[in-house]
């Protein structure tokens, strides 16, 4: 489903060229629950941006659902982000002037889903994350855990096959963080491919496979079979 071969990413910073990724080979199959860990500067955020089609690779090969990403134009990349990938961000990235309901509806707006269907689906998803009574609250009126649950509901709006979570617990306390991780685990059990990017090994332990990055390279890739 996700296949990276010799992927590099260069940034030009002034006169220096910084290699954020130095030739990464990763393959993630459908239905996997993966953590990509590494210290800051290891290139894990760059990797997440590339997997999420938010950024483009400098060299190498990236294939999503069997099609090389290089073959897609800007609009098609937007459609992939819209329908095939659900993002969960560390800072939630909810639009502050919209209600929880409107935030969840937004990806469906771009997918041109009919208004009535959008609203029904969004209400259903907010119900799934336990926020049926908070649908008309603005993000600022919600706790961090609630906001992250809204963003999980938003990530599910267009039924994507992949959930990309960038430090999903980073801004939460341990207890609410664990709730969010449990929610992601549940989504994986329902068949979604879930990729978590984190610096926290404890968070990574929730998953079935831990890929460790260091200096833009894959250091270890350990799958464990859980009982």
């Amino acid at each position, binding site marked *: 489903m996700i296949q990276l071969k010799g992927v590099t990413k260069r940034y030009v910073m002034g006169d220096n060229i910084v290699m954020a990724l130095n030739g990464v080979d990763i393959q993630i199959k459908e239905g996997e629950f993966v953590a990509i860990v590494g210290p800051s500067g290891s290139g894990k955020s760059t990797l997440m941006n590339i997997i999420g089609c*938010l*950024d483009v690779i400098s060299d190498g090969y990236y294939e999503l659902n069997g099609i090389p990403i290089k073959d897609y134009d*800007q609009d098609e990349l937007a459609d992939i*982000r*819209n329908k095939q990938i659900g993002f969960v961000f560390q800072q939630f990235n*909810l639009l502050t002037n919209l209600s929880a309901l409107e935030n969840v509806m937004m990806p469906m707006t771009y997918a041109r889903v*009919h208004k009535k269907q959008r609203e029904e689906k969004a209400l259903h998803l907010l119900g799934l994350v336990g926020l049926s009574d908070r649908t008309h609250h603005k993000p600022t009126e919600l706790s961090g855990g609630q906001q992250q649950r809204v963003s999980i509901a938003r990530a599910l709006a267009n039924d994507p096959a992949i959930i990309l979570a960038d430090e999903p617990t980073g801004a939460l306390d341990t207890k609410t963080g664990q709730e969010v991780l449990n929610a992601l685990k549940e989504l994986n059990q329902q068949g979604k491919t879930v990729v978590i990017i984190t610096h926290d090994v404890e968070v990574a332990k929730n998953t079935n496979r831990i890929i460790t990055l260091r200096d833009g390279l894959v250091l270890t890739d350990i799958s464990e079979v859980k009982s």
Partner: protein
Amino acid sequence: MSMIKEYFILALKSVWAHKIRALLTTLGVIIGVSSVILLMSLGNSARLEAANQIRSIGSNLIFVSVFDAQGSLPNDWISLIEEQADIDAYSPLISSSVSYQIEGQNIDVSISGVNERFAYINSLDMQLGRFLNEYDVEFNTPVVVLGSKIPDLLLPNQSIIGSTIIIKGIPFEVIGVVQERGTNFSGDNDMMVYIPIDYASIMSGFSSINKTFYIAANSEDNIDFTLNRVLTYLSTVFPSDSNYRAFSQTQVLGVLETILGLLTSLLAGIASISLVVGGIGIMNIMLVTVRERTKEIGIRKALGARQSQILAQFLIEAVLITTLGGLLGLLVSYVGTLVISWITDFNVVLGLDAVVLSLVFSITIGVIFGLYPAYNASKLEPVEALRFE
């Protein structure tokens, strides 16, 4: 279509969230639109007013004048013209003026020597009494018809008809007063008095006879033909066309309309500069808005917004702001016309064309000056935009 509605609601929310800013931003458009519309309405009303005034004098009118020291027309010239063209009526005119001292004030009165057809040719209506008739003209009776301002000045608190006024030492009996006419190219009509032409011609200080004529063609269609006959005749009598002048009322109307039209376009053109300035203000604030909302744009892009959708969102927001400005400008200019009509007795009307134009203007300004900021927004890289705090 549903997307546009979506963006429209989005834009409305965003404008509402920054009400004061939107209002200040749109001030330039309000001022621009209202000044353009107001000036256009004023110009159009002035044109209508001028046309009405000239029509009220009589649109069949032809005015013939020979300049001083260039000789005069033969006595029988008009009968030569009558043989060739259908003339309804004519009157010669000679003029002078006289000054009255009343209570230390100088009152200047123009005196016109005319025949009995003059009132008909110039569509003069009587307020009191009658105009000169053919007996007055034929038998040289010393009678006078007054312009509408004269009675109050020269005959205060007197019965007017039958009174006597002295003109250049000769007593004249007042037989009528003309209705108010206002001012036109022949001066203040209300400060004029009319006496029989032959009587005037023997008095001192009058212009010489057979130099100025008013001719009424028998229909509006005949004016150009008659005028051509007159001009052809004049060219046979005088060596150069700088010796005389002949023009019709419709020509005056045409010239006046052209001048007023030009003036209106010029003023509206100057006023439209403020529209451009307003547009630049919109562009400025939209650039700030796009920068402020970089994060939002990043989020929207991450969640699947296409470039065209971001472009549409910000473009519609700019157009919404300018359209609101246009509507407010329309309101301001409407109030402006009411105020002008109230202060002056000039009737200024806001035309439908002004309403349409203001909306077209403001939408166009929104598109032109919103396009660049919206394009900037649409081209933002999602990663960079997401990182923006």
